[in-house]
């Protein structure tokens, strides 16, 4: 069987079940396409055929006992800000160049226990700070739909790897849109679960109160499967919820829209590219025709999201990134004379521009005399944004909005203007601030043939409902073919 790399998770599992191919064959197929495409795309930062084939053979050896494993033989790329024992973990930064993970993140461990095959470490913006993957110290990643364009970020490599059929799914992290925006720009499904749904243990912290782990895949079912394997309480992460984890794939069998109410916020749609707006409206119409009730909701305080996000996230980052100091591990500058210069030179040379910008912003916002006006005020407004969603969710099951105001942009197009870049996450940031689950699904192509994403925002811990609505939408639209 050829083109095994193009199969989605559901098809792979069915094929293994029928013994149509082995894990090694699938792995070889993925490694082959990676070999062909990665040099151009720069989607994966670490590729190890040796590790992959060793693991594939192990899985093949498990034979019949493997049937129960939920991700048996499924190749998955992992963003390079996850720790996976034996693999590098650079988080896209020079300061962690050569760093080898001493342990494995809980989310990845759960995937491996379910039989997944780690296929490589994916490129990303440095410390997950960025919306285009251009902030990676290891060079930008390119969009498989158009090599002149960015894949989005910060999980750009994860999205590009799946879009290029290097693997059926990838893990990303999402602090302000870093899974959903690249999923949108690369024509994929991407899920940011509720805060506390998936363990953060073993992902390089950017902004602890916003970071979440989630899947990117071609289909809704595939994302649901990866999510159900990873989710649930982890004793290593005090912010994970003890709430029961539903069988998300099971709940996808129920996809009727007749009892579903969807909210749209007209105020949000101003300034959205016309092609994006058109595709969004068409999706809403189709959902309505299939039985969903559409209402208007008002989320007045979400307009402060950008300001709030760029105080809270950098504040937490300024502290989270303090550990990268050249003393214990990672990059250490030469020519230091004392501990003061050791810090200054190592951090000065090890961090990139955007990271330094956010560290300075956060340090300032937390400083004595500024704390109340900046950090504290931001946390108060954050609560109000949460309140807006609580109110909206009393009236509807999900709020719908384009994932990003535009489709994939060209490399360099926004890299000189941070604010312009920040605006590409304008619809995803509020979801992290409110701790809600959000999913981006493909909803058409613009005139240049670039994918457009539709975002659905659900109630806290109601990923099941959100995935059902996403599945209904997918049934109407059909699964978007990868380029």
């Amino acid at each position: 069987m050829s083109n095994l790399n193009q199969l989605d998770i559901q098809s792979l599992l069915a094929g293994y079940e029928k013994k149509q191919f082995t894990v090694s064959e699938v792995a070889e197929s993925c490694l082959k396409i990676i070999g062909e495409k990665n040099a151009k795309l720069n989607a994966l930062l670490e590729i190890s055929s040796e590790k992959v084939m060793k693991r594939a053979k192990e899985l093949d050896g498990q034979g019949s006992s493997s049937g129960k494993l939920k991700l048996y033989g499924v190749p998955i790329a992992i963003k390079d800000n996850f720790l996976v024992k034996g693999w590098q973990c650079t988080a896209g930064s020079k300061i962690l160049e050569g760093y080898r993970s001493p342990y494995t993140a809980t989310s990845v461990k759960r995937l491996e226990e379910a039989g997944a095959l780690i296929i490589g470490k994916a490129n990303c913006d440095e410390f997950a700070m960025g919306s285009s993957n251009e902030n990676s110290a290891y060079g930008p990643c390119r969009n498989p739909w158009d090599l002149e364009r960015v894949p989005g970020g910060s999980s750009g490599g994860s999205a590009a790897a799946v879009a290029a059929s290097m693997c059926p799914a990838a893990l990303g992290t999402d602090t302000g849109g870093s899974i959903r925006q690249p999923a949108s720009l690369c024509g994929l499904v991407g899920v940011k679960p509720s805060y506390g749904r998936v363990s953060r243990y073993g992902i390089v912290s950017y902004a602890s109160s916003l970071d979440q782990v989630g899947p990117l895949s071609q289909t809704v079912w595939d994302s649901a499967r990866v999510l159900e394997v990873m989710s649930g309480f982890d004793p290593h992460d005090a912010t994970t919820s003890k709430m029961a984890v539903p069988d998300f794939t099971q709940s996808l069998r129920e996809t009727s829209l007749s009892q579903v109410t969807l909210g749209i916020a007209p105020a949000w749609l101003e300034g959205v590219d016309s092609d994006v707006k058109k595709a969004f409206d068409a999706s809403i119409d189709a959902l309505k025709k299939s039985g969903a009730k559409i209402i208007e909701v008002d989320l007045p305080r979400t307009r402060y999201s950008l300001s709030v996000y760029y105080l809270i996230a950098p504040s937490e980052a300024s502290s989270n990134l303090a550990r990268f100091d050249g003393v214990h591990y990672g990059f250490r500058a030469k020519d230091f004379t004392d501990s003061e210069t050791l810090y200054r030179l190592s951090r000065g040379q090890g961090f990139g521009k955007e990271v330094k910008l956010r560290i300075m912003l956060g340090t300032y916002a937390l400083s004595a005399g500024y704390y109340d006006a900046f950090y504290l005020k931001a946390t108060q407004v954050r609560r109000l944004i949460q309140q807006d969603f609580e109110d909206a969710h009393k009236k509807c099951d999900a709020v719908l909005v384009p994932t990003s105001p535009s489709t994939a942009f060209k490399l360099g197009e926004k890299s000189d203007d941070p604010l312009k870049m920040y605006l590409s996450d304008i619809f995803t940031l509020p979801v992290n601030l409110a701790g809600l689950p959000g999913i981006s699904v493909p909803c058409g192509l613009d005139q240049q043939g670039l994918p457009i994403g539709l975002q659905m925002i659900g109630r806290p811990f109601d990923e099941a409902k959100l995935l059902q609505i996403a599945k209904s939408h997918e049934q109407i639209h059909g699964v978007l073919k990868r380029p």
Partner: protein
Amino acid sequence: MSDLREKYEAVIGLEVHAQLLTKSKMFCACANQYGAEINTNICPVCTGQPGALPTVNQRAVELGIRAAIALDCQIRSESIFARKNYFYPDLPKGYQISQYEKPYCEHGKITVRLKSGEEKTFGITRIHFEEDAGKNVHASHGTVVNLNRAGVPLIEIVSEPDMRNSHEAGQYLRALHSILRYGDICDGNMEQGNFRCDANISVRKRGETKFGTKVELKNINSFRFVEKAIDYEIDRQIDMVEKNEPIRQQTRTWNSAKNITELMREKESAHDYRYFPEPDLSPLVISSAWLEDIKKVMPEMPVQVRERFQKEYGLSDYDAGVLTASKDLALYYQEAVKVSNNSKASANWVANELLGRLNAAGKEIDQSPVKSDQLGDLIIRIDKSEISGKIAKTVFEEMFATGRNPGDIIKEKGLVQISDTGAIEAAIDKVIAANPTQVADYKAGKVKLLAFFVGQVMKETKGQANPGMVNELVKKKLD
């Protein structure tokens, strides 16, 4: 200086860092163990590896709550962990997890006994949880960071500025130390740094209500040094005020070799720690049910032991107070009674003789050369009339000086009490023969001279004769 001191008043506040007696660290499962081989009790969490997250050690919280209960604090049902941000090589995360705006308890108090016999109560501002830092070890080839201590659970106990002299500060620390030891909250070992004290000191003219500029004394590792350092610092500050020199806000340390305080750093270079709520941890919830469970298993506190000593051993309130001043002292006393079976005599020996000698030697009870069973043994020998009380004091001196057993000392020096009638009578005969005038006077009615004869016989027997028997036999001979 003492006249000058009268013109001034010192204001002293104390901050104590106490390591909690847990098996594991505050935010990870690594062993909390002193003296292990360098960098062996470490993991991704306490070495600050990327992606590692803290989780709260429930046992540490329980021990902290014990301290809060023992110190009469108001406990918050929901407190917040906060990050204190600063760079230092022994701090692998670049921040210390602590508590800031909402510590787990506040507004406590502690009552101490002063040497005047008076009792005084000092306020406790707050207690909060935090993690210890690692230790920089300076070796010939450079500096090595040992992270075995990084993440060890601490409580920081902050007092109100209620102390007015070094004695009050010393007694506060001893009482606090005692409570933490009694509660099995902290082992109190100051040499290992498990109980560390910082003192804030300022002086002002008597009658003034405004505080003077404070100086912080850091890392002093014994009660006596704290007292000495405070005394030195008070004199130094008064001297400066008298000379019209401004007191600068400084951090100073005690040099025990030179008996002076020395500058560590000026406060102007103080950090902005950029405290903010620790986003990796949820608020610490202490439910009333949990609190009740902890109260049920609270070890005996000094006040309770003091009451028990009065009931069980028939001691006065005062003696019971003295003997329960520290857990080690109370345990010492109990052990001595167990051996001697004489609670009153044991109380006298411990409270008067032993504590007096320890004080003079500048030692704490756990450094006593005389062990509790040895003191019990000595008391038995008095009670069995093997030696007199007076000889016992000589034996005790020898025990204190050498740490040897009383039996050996008595045997070697031939101090066994003479209870042999014949030997005592022989001595009496000798004394009567040598003092005919006194014998005549006695017989003429001067019965007070009995004491003289007894004294002479004791002298004759080098104090070894059984005094009761001497008394009886002298009377018999003369009458």
